[in-house]
């Protein structure tokens, strides 16, 4: 078991086309650093200076991390993390 991370299309070039990859439990930033080790470059696309970029939304088990503990949110084995670019709708 590991943390499952869903990768959006714009980042799949960095993951050899994989839509889902596995990561290590810990805080969201630990997870991103771990992914960056395996797939170099992915960290700077998602984050900047230890913070998630403004137009990136991160969900843990379908909940926006800004409703949890933001970058300090802890993820454990079996959790599903989705990385999704902000998208428009409504008015």
């Amino acid at each position: 078991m590991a943390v499952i991370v869903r990768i959006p299309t714009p980042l799949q070039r960095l993951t050899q086309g994989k839509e889902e990859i596995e990561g290590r439990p810990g805080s969201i930033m630990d997870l991103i650093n771990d992914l960056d080790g395996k797939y170099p470059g992915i960290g700077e696309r998602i984050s900047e200076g230890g913070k998630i970029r403004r137009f990136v939304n991160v969900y843990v088990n379908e909940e926006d991390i800004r409703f949890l503990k933001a970058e300090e949110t802890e993820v454990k084995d079996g959790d599903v993390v989705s990385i999704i670019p902000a998208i428009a709708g409504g008015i």
Partner: protein
Amino acid sequence: MSFVRGLKCRECGREYPVEPIYVCEFCFGPLEVVYDYDSIKKVMTIDKILSRPKSLWRYRELLPVDGEPVVGLNSGFTPLVKADNLAGVLGVKQLYIKDDTVVHPTLSFKDRVVSVALTKAREFGFDTVACASTGNLAHAVSAQGANAGFKRFIFIPATLEYSKIVASLVYEPNLIAVDGNYDDVNRLCSEIANKYKWAFVNINIRPFYAEGSKTHGHEIIEQLGWRAPDNVVVPCASGSLMTKIWKSFKEMKEIGVLKELNTRVFAAQATGCSPIVAAIKSNSDIIRPVKPDTIAKSLAIGNPADGYYATKVVKESGGYGEDVSDEEIIDAIKLLAKTEGIFAETAGGVTLAAAKKLIETGRIDRDKTTVICITGNGLKTQEALVGHTGQPYHIRPNLASFEECLKGIKKGGQ
């Protein structure tokens, strides 16, 4: 012929060719269509605009399509109503309602964006169109997609008003009701859009789709006699409409149609979902997402994608923002109906109620020209008014019964 130079990231400025893409690969910033305004200026004159049919396509040089438009040939060019009765009640001199309760064919401003999105989807060669919607967009994609011969997948929050569901189903799209709020639907759709090669109008077609909103602003300029209003009040959900109205005003100046631009732009939200206005009021550009709780479902986006840019527009133009309660929304819907004969959906109640507050608090100058943007028809959200209107007078089918009733009306009626 197109005057589009390409797509450009609003954050880092990287440029991309015209493709069905919507985020920068490097920083995830949103992509925006950029135009060659110098060339547009040479060909797009006031006389040329006036010579064209009264639809949103009369500003076509400022829209991101290459060939002839194929969708929405009758959409747009809605009335700019001089609202003297309402102005009297609010105590202002010059008040206008930009009335998108009557956009062809589905009675909301979403017909504008969908006209552009589906024309572009056809140019890209898609056979299936899709959207995540709070209702109005579902109607526009269902209807205009039917007319243009697209397969349609429409994703809505399952809690949507029943009347809005029926008004989609009648066009026979594939309607998918998702357990969750709009933000949940949106998140799901972005994952579906990753997997299925469809034209999601508000995802991979977004840069083109969103440009259609500009025509609401272009028309305001034309209908005011080629000048910009002093104030414009715009409802905000994602913040997209507000940023595009501001863009439309700026580009009308850029191409020389507008001599001056001193408009202040004001944001309107429901208190139960006001992440943009909260940021404006605290003089910040950090948008804190919220869980929406308001009767204005078409504005219930707790995680507004263009919220950051909406706060920039307010700051740049010297505007402000205001939020209003559900009760104020209902009162404003009724006020607009009884003064101007216009029945707006709940979002329209939000906009008018916010405008009223902005006038009362002196943020909007009573002596200046103000335009209130009303974006959808009240027939779509009638449930919101149940228990908040008067009742009919019930009589028997004879004259005596009517005259008995009339006595009561003369005593206390309207």
